[in-house]
């Protein structure tokens, strides 16, 4: 028997939570912090995972000399092990007004919670940001790690509300002002902005963050059903745009939408990142366990 009171979070049910807890993030690069963690990051670490050999240099710790090789070759070689370091997982939820359409924000919060839980259970430092107002600080959950942090994370995300007016590019720049640490930056937004995303993407990349972009679009944005002469009103800026014979423009609209997806994908991939566009109408499990797993974003 499943009731609302017995659920751990309102974002998804306990079963989904259980599945999520067994999943791990799979970054392309191992961008980690110097502080110790459970992420293997390059050679020279002190983990039990062997990585490579190298010539002995003066001052090297003699404990790492491979004596068997020395006996055979009469030359000292140092054994190197994988470095286990802590990885930052930064989740940015676009809480602008445009995300209020058709469960886009809900899906973004659910995905943010899922990614956050995966990070926390993998002993990563997880910080969460929600862009809201242009002025002032973003809503943020400072970096933290450990299972105990899960409740805080879910509580924070449950309280995130839409209706903000910060465009995604501004939100990224604002987030970077508060964030320190290398790792993965997960951007959950519709990426419908008039601004240029190249600069924030470069900033993310230069900050040592692997960019994971997930575009969440509503069904009405993917397949708009409009016709006739219309006056479109921007939900954020209230600006208007008069469209004549909108039905004749749908083909061009689809071209533009696909072009935007392709641009974002290129933008992320060129910065060692990933990109995925999802329909907000798709279920969370479908997105998590099907699309993301299949594309290798997460490991089950």
């Amino acid at each position, binding site marked *: 028997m499943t009731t609302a009171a017995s659920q751990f979070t309102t974002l998804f049910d306990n079963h989904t939570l259980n599945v999520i807890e067994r999943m791990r993030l799979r970054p392309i690069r191992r961008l980690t912090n110097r502080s110790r963690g459970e992420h293997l990051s390059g050679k020279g670490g002190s983990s039990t995972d062997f990585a490579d050999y190298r010539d002995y240099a003066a001052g090297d710790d003699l404990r790492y000399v491979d004596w068997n090789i020395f006996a055979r070759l009469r030359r000292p070689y140092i054994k190197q092990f994988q470095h286990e370091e802590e990885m930052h997982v930064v989740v940015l939820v676009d809480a602008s*007004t*445009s*995300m*209020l*359409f058709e469960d*886009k924000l809900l899906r973004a919060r659910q995905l943010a919670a899922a990614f956050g839980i995966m990070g926390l259970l993998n002993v990563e430092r997880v910080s969460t940001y929600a862009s809201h107002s242009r002025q002032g600080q973003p809503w943020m959950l400072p970096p933290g790690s450990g299972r105990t942090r899960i409740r805080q994370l879910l509580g924070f995300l449950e309280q995130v509300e839409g209706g903000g007016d910060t465009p995604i590019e501004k939100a990224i720049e604002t987030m970077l002002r508060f964030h320190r640490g290398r790792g993965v930056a997960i951007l959950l937004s*519709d990426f*419908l*902005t*008039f601004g240029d995303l190249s600069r924030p993407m470069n900033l993310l990349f230069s900050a040592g963050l692997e960019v994971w972009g997930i575009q969440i679009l*509503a069904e009405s*944005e993917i397949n708009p059903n*409009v*016709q*006739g*002469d*219309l*006056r*479109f*009103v*921007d*939900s*954020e*800026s209230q*600006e*208007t*745009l*008069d*469209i*004549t*014979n909108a039905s004749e*423009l749908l083909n*061009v*609209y689809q*071209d*533009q*939408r696909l*072009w*935007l997806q392709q641009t974002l994908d290129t933008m992320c991939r060129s910065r060692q990142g990933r990109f995925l566009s999802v329909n907000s109408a798709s279920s969370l499990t479908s997105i998590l366990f099907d699309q993301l797993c299949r594309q290798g974003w997460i490991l089950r």
Partner: protein
Amino acid sequence: MKWPGFVNLFGAWFFLALIPLIVLYFLKLKRPRLEVPSLALWQSVVNDQRVNSPFQKFRRNLLLLLQMILLCLLILALMQPFLAAGADVAEYMPLLIDCSASMSAKAESSGQTRLDVVKEQVRKQIENLTGDQRIALFSFAATGRRLTEFTNDRRVLLKALDQIQPTHLPGQLDDVLRLAAAYTRTFPIQSVTILTDGNLPDQVDFELPFSLEVNRVDAGGPNVGITEMSARRSGPQDWEVFLRVSGSGDDLRGAELQFFENGTQTSAQSVEVAKDEPERLVFPITATQQTLIEARLVPAGFDSMELDNTVWLSLPTPRPLKVWTSPKLSSWRHALRVQPNLDLEESTDAVPSGSDYDLLITDSGDTGGAIAPVQVFVGVVPSDLQDLIEVRTDVAAVVDWNRTSPFLRHVQLSEVQIGEQPYLAQGASVKELEERGYEVLIDGNTGPLLLQRREGLQVSFWFTFHTDRSTLPYRVGFPILAANAVEAALKQASLSEVSAAPTGVLPALTVLPERDYVIRSPEGSEVTVKSGPTGVLTGIAAPRVGRYDVLDGGELTTSIGTGLLNSTETSLSSTSELRFTELTVATNESETLDSDRPLWWILALLAFLVMLFEWWYFSRARGAVA
């Protein structure tokens, strides 16, 4: 490039109507509002569509654009644009329309007369009349006539134009040009347009105060007609009637000439004529009484003009010439006795016993109340010249004489000795004689020896010396002089030669004095004319070809007929240039009457098409525009 002008330039104020149109359009246009998450994609779509479709910008507000175009077209049509025919748009345009006889010539193919073609051109000009333009219509044949004042009232102009009919008169430009010139004093007339067939005398005695444009219509079809008809007496009761039949075409065309005497056909003859090959015919006639002869031409094929096919000629009652001479003028009597067909009254009375004579020759100023068309006074100074001429007994000599005068034809006067010498009074000159109506026929060394005076139909010759006191009666020229006097009297009495009367004015008719006569025209209209004290009816207008009857109290007195009798009109030829006093104006057949071309109907049509397009476009894409 010619820019169109506008009749109603004030109509441009209506362009201000565009402002409320635009305002109302945007006020009225209510598009359904649809809130979308972001305009980013749609803005890209619109931008992309604009790039790919340059007219997308216009398409967005296509309805407004079409409405503005529609309104602009309607306003432009309201402004009545026109393409000016010439560089200068003449404000006052006198149009001189030729309605001479040749303008009634019909084209063989269309059956349209030249005047119809001209009227069509003028009608178009009137219909295309722009706001500040004024037209005055003049018609002309032998004389000019103003049909309308300068006006832009199309109704008045078209009504006047419809009333123009071809006359039966030859064309003359002088009169109508003077009429038009009179208007240059009150109106700024730059140019005068003549619409004619070019069948005009090429010499015009007129100094042009304006520029002249001659628009010539095409030539009509082939034509044959009678151009001359006259009769000469060949015996006491015999006449020879001469006829000339001419044609206008290059090819010979046949016709039958029928001859009628007092309405009865007496003979007929076939003729074949061409442009330069007229045919002259002679019909002998025996007339014992006054006879009205009608010559009627029946063309074998198409004949362009009918009114030159009939001509009338009145032959007088044959009688001898009635002459009276003074008993003392034995030399004159002697010379007259040998003349044939002469009834010479040789009485011994100093004054004539009768009242009507054909020729009076007297040596006295008193004729006793008798009148004659030709009078010869011998040795008499006219009473009204007594103060200017004094006759003395002296030897006079002939200095010069008018050799072209019919009275002195073939008369040699040199070396004639004269025993009486007329002197002009001191200070007097020939000019004063002329002012009093006398023409000097023989000049003496000190004064006039022979004077001539014309009064109505009468002509009188005044020898200021007595012929018996000169060597003239002994000269060969004297019987010739007497014969010339008889000849003049015969002509005056129409006893030797008669010519058919052309249209215009009827020849003077001798009737009873001071009596009302009714003249019945060929169309049946009647006009009453009173004869003068000398019993002459003159100045009777005869504008139509046909028979005119003179009625006295309901009874037919005499009949006289008229014909066109103009070889120029019959030839239908066109002169290529008109020579004026100082310049020459070319008549150009290809030149048509230029008129301003109105464009309002094109704009109105375009507006209608725009409206149809608007209806079709927005019906086709329903919902495309609110």
